Structure formats: C-alpha cells, structure tokens
C-alpha cells in the first residue's frame, strides 16, 4: 500500500490543522499500512515494533501538526522519520533491557545464597506471608497478591487470578488497576502496622 498523493497529504494536513474531527481517523486509515511497511523495510524490525512506532508517530504529529512545514517536504516523509526514530528507541531500549537481564543473571549466579541463608530467608518469607493471610482473607486476592509480590505485571495474569478475565479488555484493565491499588494499600497498612509492632 502506498502513501496518499502529495495533494491528498496536503489536504489531510490542512484538515488536521483546522481541527476537522474525523481528519485524525482518516490519517490513520491512509498512513498506517504504508508507514508500517516503510519502517519495517528500513529498519528490518518486527511487525509489532513497526506498528507501535507508527501509531506513536501519527499521534506525535497530531499532537503538534504545526511542527510539520510543508515547504520542507512531504508529510509522509516527516511522519516516517518520526516513526523510524521511535522504532530505533524501542529497539535500543529492548537491547539495553536484554543486556541488563544478562548482567543480572550473571550476578545472581555468582551470588547464589548459601543453603542456610536460603532457608532463613524462606522462613522469614513464610512468616510474612502468614501475616498477609491474616489481613487478606479472599483466596483470589491472595493469589493476585502473590503474583504482584512475584513481580508479575501482566494485566491478563492478574485478571485470571482475580477471576475477572471474562471482562472486556478496557474494563478488565480498569478493574485490575483498581484491585492492584487496593491490594497495595492493604500491604502499605500491614507494613506500617508491622513497623509499629517492631517499634514497641
């Protein structure tokens, strides 16, 4: 699929500047596919990276359409440049994360705890979990809390634990956030209470 003709691009830009309410939807309809293809072709990246970066690029342009100067070139060139920049950022972030994980893995292997240290930690964790069970009665809340404490950030995993995975996506996200906030408050209160107990 190709980008719109220069004339159509220009018309679309004028509609965006004039705050035409459907111009943004038309922009997505005309630009997404050629934009994703251009990013993929130039950077040899995966479809998801290209698609997410194209979405970012279109919203960046829509946020400040005045940043595009028609005298300096085509709108498609301007937006593609933004998209490629976003894709490069994504790829860099991903490789940095992979490097950090690798380094972290190496440190963990070097610092494997002694067997007795591991047992002590396990006993501490067990005691703490018992305290949590005293204040969190609901099995689903406990399951979700266990996931949160384990570092789980996936909305779908938490929704499954909370038994709300049947909800529509947006509602599921909202409900998971609400439950997560509620459970974090419970933990905060428990933490404060334990600190008070230790202080007395």
């Amino acid at each position, binding site marked *: 699929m190709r980008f719109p003709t220069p004339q159509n691009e220009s018309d679309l830009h004028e509609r965006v500047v004039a705050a035409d309410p459907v111009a943004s939807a038309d922009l997505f309809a005309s630009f997404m596919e050629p934009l994703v293809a251009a990013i993929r072709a130039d950077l040899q990246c995966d479809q998801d990276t290209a*698609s997410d970066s194209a979405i970012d690029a279109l919203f960046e342009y829509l946020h400040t359409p005045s940043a595009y100067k028609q005298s300096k070139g085509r709108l498609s060139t301007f937006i593609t440049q933004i998209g490629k920049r976003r894709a490069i950022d994504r790829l860099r972030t991903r490789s940095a994360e992979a490097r950090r994980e690798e380094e972290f893995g190496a440190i963990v292997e070097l610092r494997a705890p002694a067997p007795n240290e591991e047992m002590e930690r396990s006993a501490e964790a067990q005691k703490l979990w018992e305290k949590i069970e005293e204040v969190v009665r609901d099995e689903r809340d406990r399951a979700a809390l266990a996931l949160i404490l384990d570092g789980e950030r996936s909305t779908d995993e938490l929704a499954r634990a909370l038994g709300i995975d049947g909800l529509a996506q947006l509602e599921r996200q909202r409900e998971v956030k609400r439950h997560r906030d509620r459970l974090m408050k419970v933990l905060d209160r428990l933490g404060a209470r334990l600190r008070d107990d230790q202080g007395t």
Partner: protein
Amino acid sequence: MTKEPSWLRDAARRAQFEPWTLGRLFSSLCELESTCDKDLITELQCDAGTLHWLYLCRAPSDAHFAGDVEQIARRFGLDPNRLAALVRRADALEALAANTADSEDHKFLLAARDREDGEEPR
C-alpha cells in the same frame, strides 16, 4: 470505514491517553459510570470496529459542537442525536467529577446518574 485492521485496537487504546480524542472522553465516561465499550456500542448502536474508529476522532469542540457531531455521525453511519447525547453526558460528568472534592460526593453523582428519568431519589 467500519472494517477493523489489525492495528486499530492498539491505536484506539493509545488514543485514550491523548487529551483531544473522543477515545479519551469515552474512556473517561466509562470510568465515571463504571461501564465499558459494550455499553457504548449498545448506546451508539454500532459495532466494535466503528467504536475503535471513533476513538481516533477529535472530540467535538464547544464552538462547533453540532457541526462536528454531525460530521462524525455521518462518516460512521451513527445517529447524531445519540452521539451528541453521549458526548454531552461525558463532558458534563467530567466537569462534575473535576469539581467533586471528596469521594462521597463522587458516589452521590454516580448514584444520581443511575436513576431513571422521573424516578424519585431513594
């Protein structure tokens, strides 16, 4: 423009974070009324794909409200009266929520919204 390309859902989700979009306004409405996309689809009498396209539109401006609503409705084959009512309600609830200082008042507003027309307060 009602078919749903693979990227549309992601773009619609992303639109909720842009202050000028209908997506942000509708998601705010859903949050305030504890409803979801399905309720919007029912109210607008459209399909999920159309709702996602709507999310990408600019919210009607106060200065050109009727014209903007008419244009959006015409493009997506919607009833302009239904769309206008939804947008107005979202605007009003957002304004009220912004002025609501504490959560008790907030609950009161939502309870008021739940009453049917002509129904006496409980």
